[in-house]
């Protein structure tokens, strides 16, 4: 079976400073990789390289994907001046049959017509996560998905991601705390 993402000897330099060197990994369908590392060890950069946003890289990266990547970074791509409902319709997930259930689980089902700017940081993060929940891509990239989430929602996220692994999706996520997801560990700080 072919890996969804295969990275060989990835290195990245920024302003002549080496971030990481010779990172190699293979990500199969139905598997997850937990990227760990100290602050500034290049977790976000590694995810951006896999997305294809960042180019300056030595080494090779091969992707065998049928659908587009689902990526959630630090920026949540939501419009502050629109309501929750309008934001969801911008993300094209307003008519998704599962939306209702996720909204109830996150406690957001009654705030659909509220302006996003009056929601808290954690609530906004939950809305952004809805895009991850309702996508149909086969590779999910998450950059610190748990920042600002309460324990209940964290557990819900982990349950959901484990469920997605069952459905043969591949997940790459970076997090400085350990999450209850069946994953291999990739520590960027160790490899330098």
């Amino acid at each position, binding site marked *: 079976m072919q890996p969804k993402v295969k990275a060989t000897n990835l290195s990245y330099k920024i302003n002549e400073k080496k971030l990481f060197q010779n990172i190699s990994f293979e990500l199969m369908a139905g598997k997850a990789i937990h990227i760990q590392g100290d602050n500034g060890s290049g977790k976000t950069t590694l995810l*951006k390289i896999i*997305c*294809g*946003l*960042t*180019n*300056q890289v030595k080494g090779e990266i091969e992707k065998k994907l049928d659908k*587009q*990547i689902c*990526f959630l*970074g*630090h*920026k*949540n*791509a*939501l*419009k*502050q*001046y*629109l309501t929750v409902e*309008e934001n969801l*319709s*911008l993300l*094209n997930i307003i008519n998704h049959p599962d939306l209702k259930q996720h909204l109830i689980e996150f406690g957001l089902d009654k705030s659909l017509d509220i302006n996003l700017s009056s929601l808290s940081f954690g609530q906004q993060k939950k809305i952004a996560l809805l895009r991850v929940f309702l996508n149909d891509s086969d590779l999910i990239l998450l950059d610190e998905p748990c920042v600002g989430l309460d324990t209940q929602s964290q557990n819900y996220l982990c349950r959901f991601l484990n469920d997605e692994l069952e459905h043969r999706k591949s997940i790459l996520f970076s997090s400085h705390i350990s999450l209850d997801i069946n994953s291999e560990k990739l520590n960027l700080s160790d490899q330098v």
Partner: protein
Amino acid sequence: MNIIKFELLKLRNKSRGWLGPILVFILIMVAFPLTVEISNKDLDQSFFAVLWIAVLLVMMLATEDIFLEDFNDGSLEQFAISDISFPYIISVKIFIYWLLIGVPISIIGSLFCLGFTNSGNLAINIFPILLITSYIFINVFSFGNALSLTKGSVLGTLVTLPLLLPLLIVLGKAVISINLNLNYLGFVALLLGVLSIIIFLIPLIISYIIRAHLE
């Protein structure tokens, strides 16, 4: 389709983005006769000078926020990794801005032209030129704003305005030919030629620049 819906919903809720430039345009056109003597018979001579500069300035204002907001909240990041081609998304964005700002300004500009010069012929002839010119301007200023994405629009304007100055000379010549009842279609053809090159090249260049910004 989704990107068109995206832009329209965004702009519907942010009227200062498109209504603001149009109002500024009207204000400039209303304000300039106040600065010259009212009885001045040559008002229609200076009218076109002010018209082109006003279109230039307003297009510059209009593009100020075209990429910055989407860059800051991460929407551009999402567009860049999506399946839809990135230059296509950018050209649609520019087209919608032109539709909402450039087209109204062309109509209003022609009306002002009718008011100032009392010549219906001139007003009708100037309309297509205004349409094409505003589209060229909005493309070039979008390029400038993409360059100076996080550094404010003054820098973007500073680096792109020199590129547009030769165009202003052409516009001046076109107005003279219309005034003298000469054939001005040559100028329209020239502007259309410039536009048809720009319309393909600029989105490609902008997508390259924005990808560099996203790195």
